[in-house]
């Protein structure tokens, strides 16, 4: 659905994107994860035809973002980070104006506006001015607006930034619903790990304009060694037990009177591990989170000048304000 090839974007001496290549499949939710200033928004702007890349290119829904901008624009819906609906107009008026901008024929217009309003659960608020909406409702209205013209690809730039935990969960619900009902491919950027884990089929980690890892959340978590089980015995470790004989065990470490076992799928395999085991004092286990993956991956990249509040980011904010 999307092919990105060797994408480079330079601002003076600063490389926002540094030779990015990846593909996004049809009907998947693809997450772009990374610290602030990693290049996620720049990438979205290029894919949405708002920015020209310095080098490389991208194909969206079969159309070149550089040479066929109109076709790309007809294929995509976008929700930007900052609010982009007129808060002095009503939700319905915002949708009508955008339906006209997308050239949706008069006969289909009203029907489609009701459909998208219903999809994001705002039909009873459609005649209120947007300034009376909550942050989450406003974001949902913008999703509805982006869906008006039946896009094939949908970009969500930090869809839950600044929302409280409850609104965030509501948002996730609607994002899943829109994939199911509208059959769109979604690219979303976020720096909330649990959001990416919850929603995304695959995740690309971006740091300093490069993709440093790309896989499904579960595979990424396995890469840092899978689940960890720590069995502590009453006095000492039984000598006759060989945990490495199981296929699902990767590695075994021993410490005093406990064993630490790195393994796959602790939920379904634990019972085999502890069968016929005597003298067990405690069993603890930990499933790695995307956060662990992120910290491990970005560890060597984020030394010194951390992007979170680092110089480049402060500079970018200064330029923006």
């Amino acid at each position, binding site marked *: 659905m999307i092919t990105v090839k060797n994408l480079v974007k330079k601002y003076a001496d600063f490389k926002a994107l540094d030779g990015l290549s990846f593909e996004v499949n049809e009907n998947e939710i693809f997450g772009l994860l990374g610290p602030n200033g990693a290049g996620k928004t720049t990438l979205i702007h290029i894919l949405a035809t708002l*920015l020209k890349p310095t080098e490389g290119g991208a194909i969206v829904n079969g159309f070149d973002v550089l040479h066929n901008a109109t076709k790309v624009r007809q294929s995509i819906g976008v929700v930007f980070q900052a609010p982009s609906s007129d808060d002095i*107009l009503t939700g319905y008026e915002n949708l009508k104006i955008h339906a006209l901008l997308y*050239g949706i024929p008069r006969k289909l217009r009203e029907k489609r506006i009701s459909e998208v309003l219903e999809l994001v659960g705002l039909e009873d608020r459609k005649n209120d001015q947007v300034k009376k909406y909550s942050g989450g409702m406003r974001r949902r209205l913008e999703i509805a607006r982006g869906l008006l013209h039946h896009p094939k690809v949908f970009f969500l730039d930090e869809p839950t930034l600044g929302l409280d935990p409850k609104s965030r969960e509501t948002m996730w619900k609607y994002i899943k619903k829109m994939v199911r009902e509208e059959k769109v491919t979604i690219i979303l950027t976020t720096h909330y790990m649990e959001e990416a884990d919850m929603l995304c089929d695959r995740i690309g980690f971006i740091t300093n304009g490069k993709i440093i890892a790309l896989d499904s959340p579960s595979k990424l978590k396995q890469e840092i060694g899978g689940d960890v089980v720590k069995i502590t015995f009453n006095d000492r470790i039984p000598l006759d037990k060989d945990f490495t004989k199981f296929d699902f065990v990767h590695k075994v470490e021993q410490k005093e009177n406990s064993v630490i076992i790195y393994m796959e799928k602790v939920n379904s395999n634990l019972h085999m591990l502890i069968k016929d085991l005597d003298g067990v004092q405690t069993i603890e286990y930990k499933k790695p989170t995307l956060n662990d993956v992120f910290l491990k991956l970005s560890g060597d990249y984020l030394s010194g000048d951390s992007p979170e509040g680092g110089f480049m980011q402060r500079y970018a904010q200064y330029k923006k304000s």
Partner: protein
Amino acid sequence: MLSTKNLSSNIVLGQLYALWLREIKVFLRERSRLVASTFTPLLWLIVIGSGLGSTNLQIGTDYEKFIFPGIICMSVIFTSVFFGAYIIWDRKFDFLKSVMVAPSSRTTVFIGKTLGGMTTSLFQVAIILVVGIVLGINYDALSLLQILSIVLILSFCLTSLGLTFGSYIESLEGFQLIISFIVFPLFFLSGALFPIDNLPAWLKLITLVDPATYSVDALRNSILHLGTYSFEYDLAVLLLFTFIITIIGILSFRRMKAV
């Protein structure tokens, strides 16, 4: 910068309507903007009009009546330039981005905005024309038609000018610059408040490159029969200015950064 060809004219018309509709709805709902932009010209008309009018000037009519065409132009200058410069605000929040990712060309966005500017100017001028009746000014069908066309053209011209500057300026503080360096010079140098016939040569030269000069003169011609040039000459020069500024505006708008 990016190609947006192959759109049917039906769709482009719908897009123009959408952009126009948005501007008008926002304008009508922002009461404070509406009141402020109508009140200022009236204040000038009444205070400056009676103030300077009491000093016995040799201009061939009452001073209040003399500046009346100038005040009409003043209202168009203020409304239109600011209207165009509002693009800075649209860019500040992501409205402009959301328009730019729609399959509409930048020229369409530009024209849609100028249509909005023209309509808001008409609202204001209509109010001032009503006040004119109180001052004892008589209109006939021809003069109303002439006022309408001059107001529409000047407004198109100056909204383009505002959009042009707005497309280069990134900060909201830039508005201040626009007031000092565009709005006030356009107004003061247009001959709205004084006759331009007997000005010193250097000052007269500057008034000649101000499109508002020809609008004031044309309106003075049609309302008071007191113009320096003929109505046709004024109209032609104004159209020329409008054409040039619109071309520059569209070009600036196309090279403007979307993000």
